[in-house]
C-alpha cells in the first residue's frame, strides 16, 4: 500500500520524489534493509547509490543484493533484480535474518495508521462486518514485528490518519508506552512516518506520533486538519529538505518512466 502522491510540492520535483528522498535519508550506510515495493524500493536504490553504498538489500521473495540491479525494476520480482544478486534463497531464510534481529530498517505502508503507529492493511469495518476488504499483511506485519525499526510511508488524509485503526495488521506501539514489550515484541517499532504532507516521529516515552517536519507547501495547520486526532508537534517543526539534484537524478534513473513518482 503506497501513498498516492499526485500533486507536485512546488519546485522542480514531485511530491512522490520528495517522499522518496525522505525515505532514502532514513537509511544509514552499512545497514541491512528489508526492501519493500514502490516508493520504499526507490528510496533504497537512491540511498544505496548515494550515501549508503554498503547497505544490504533483503527482499522477502528470497533475494539479497549488495549491489544495484543493472536495469530499472518495477517490482522486486523483476528479473534484473534477481540477476547477479548475492543470494537467491528461501523466504524462510530471509525471514530468519529478520527474526534474529539482523535487519536494521524496513518500510511499509497502509490504508490506516493511528496515533501510536499501528497500521491497517486488512479491512475497514469490523471482522464480522467488513466494509472494505484490503489485500492483507503480506510481509508487513513481519517487518513491523521483527525489524529493528520501520518507516511508514503513506498518504496523509483524515480518514487514513485515525485515532485507532479498525484492525492492527502491523503493530506499531499498540496503545503506547511499553506495549510492545508487554505483548512479547522484543525490539523495533516505527521510527518515522513519511506522508504526503510531512514527516512524523514518535515520542520516546509515550510513543505517540508527533509532527517532526513539514513538506514545502504544507503547513502544520493543514497537517492537523488532515489528521484524525489532536496531533502534537515537536517544539519547532522543520521544513522537510527538498530532494537534492543528486537525489533527483537517481530517482529518475531508477524510475525513468515516472511510474511511481509522477
Amino acid at each position, binding site marked *: *500500500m503506497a501513498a498516492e502522491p499526485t500533486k507536485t510540492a512546488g519546485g522542480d520535483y514531485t511530491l512522490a520524489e520528495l517522499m522518496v528522498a525522505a525515505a532514502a535519508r532514513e537509511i544509514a550506510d552499512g545497514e541491512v534493509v528489508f526492501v519493500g515495493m514502490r516508493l520504499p524500493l526507490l528510496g533504497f536504490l537512491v540511498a544505496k547509490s548515494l550515501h549508503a553504498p554498503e547497505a544490504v538489500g533483503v527482499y522477502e521473495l*528470497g533475494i539479497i543484493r549488495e549491489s544495484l540491479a543493472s536495469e530499472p525494476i518495477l517490482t522486486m520480482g*523483476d528479473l534484473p533484480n534477481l540477476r547477479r544478486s548475492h543470494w537467491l534463497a528461501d523466504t*524462510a531464510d530471509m525471514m530468519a535474518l529478520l527474526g534474529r534481529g539482523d535487519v536494521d530498517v524496513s518500510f511499509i505502508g497502509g490504508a490506516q495508521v493511528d496515533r501510536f503507529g499501528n497500521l491497517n492493511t486488512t479491512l475497514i469495518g469490523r471482522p464480522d462486518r467488513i466494509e472494505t476488504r484490503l489485500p492483507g499483511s503480506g510481509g508487513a506485519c*513481519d517487518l513491523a514485528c521483527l525489524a529493528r525499526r520501520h518507516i511508514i510511508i503513506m498518504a496523509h488524509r483524515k480518514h487514513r490518519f485515525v485515532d485507532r485503526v479498525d484492525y492492527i495488521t502491523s503493530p506499531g506501539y499498540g496503545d503506547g508506552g511499553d506495549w510492545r514489550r508487554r505483548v512479547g*515484541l522484543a525490539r523495533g517499532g516505527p521510527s518515522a512516518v513519511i506522508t504526503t504532507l510531512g514527516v512524523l516521529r514518535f515520542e520516546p516515552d509515550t510513543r505517540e506520533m508527533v509532527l517532526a517536519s513539514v513538506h514545502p507547501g504544507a503547513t502544520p495547520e493543514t497537517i492537523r486538519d488532515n489528521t484524525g486526532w489532536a496531533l502534537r508537534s515537536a517544539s519547532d517543526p522543520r521544513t522537510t529538505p527538498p530532494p537534492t539534484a543528486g537525489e533527483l537524478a537517481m530517482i529518475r534513473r531508477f524510475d525513468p518512466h515516472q511510474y511511481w513518482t509522477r
Partner: protein
Amino acid sequence: MPKEKRLSLPDAIERFIPDNSRIVMGASLESVIPFAAGHEIMRQGRRDLTLVGPISDILFDQIIGAGCVRKVQAAWVGNVITGSGYNFRRAVESGRLETEDHTNLTVSLALRAAAMGVPFLPTRTALGSDLFRTNPGLKTTTCPFTGDRLTAVAAIQPDVAVLHVQRSDVYGHAHAWGNLGISREACLAAHNIILTAEEIVDPDVITSDPNRVVVPGFRVGAVVHAPWGAHPSPVPGHYNRDHQAFLDYREASKTPKDFTEWKAKWVDGVGSPEDYAELLGRERMAQLAIKEHDYSEPVDYGC
C-alpha cells in the same frame, strides 16, 4: 526408474484437484506463478477450493472471480503493481469467501510445520496484531524454557502443491532457479505435487545438478509441459514480467461484467499453450523473452 508422470494439463487438474481440494500456489511470491494451471482449474469449474499462498499476485483473484474458491489462507491477495484485487474484495465483502489472514512468515511456518509433521511452529511475528482475531490458526503460547510469549502457527496441510518450474524430466525431477519463496515448504507439506514446466528435458540434465532440485521427485504426481505457463509473471531463463498484463487486469476486473469478458477471452477461450501464444502474439512474446543471456558458472560433481 520410477513411472513416467507426464500428463496433459487438463488430465493433471482433473486427476489431482477434485472439488474441495486445498491447493498451495504462487509459492515464489511474484515469480513463476502457475497461471496456466490456475486457468485450467477455472475452465474445469472446480468448486469449494481452499487456496493457500503467501502473495499470489493476481492468480488468486482470478480463481476467486471464477467462483471456484470457498476459503483463502494467505498473507496478501491483490495485484502487486496496482493494489486491490477486485474479485477478492467483492467475494469477501459479500460474505461469499472465508479468509484466514496470514503474514508471509506465518504462511511459510504453517507449511513448514505440515512438512515436518508437527502441529505448530512458534514465531515472534504477529504478536499484538489483530491477525489472531481473523485466523484461528494463530494462538499465543509460552516458551517452556524462557517463558517468552510467542505466536503459535498451526500447520496447514495442502492436498496439492502446484509449482511452475523451468525444466523437469518425465519422472518429476525438476530444476527451479530464481527466488524460491516458500516453494520448498509448499512441496514438502503437500500430499501431492503437480509440476508445470517450461521444458521437458532428459533425466541427465536434472541429475547433472542435484542441488538445483527443489522438490522431492518421488512425491510428484504429474508433470505437465506448459511453455509460457507462468505468464504474465516472470520466469528466470525464459521471460520477463509482463507489467502491462497486470495493469490491463486491473481494468478488466473492476466489475463482474468486465471480468467475465476478460475470462472468456484469456481463460475459457484457451484450449492449449498454442492458443495462449496466439492470443499473446509474437511481438509481445518477443518483447518479454530473455534478450541478454547470463549463464551460471558450472560446478563439478565428478569423483
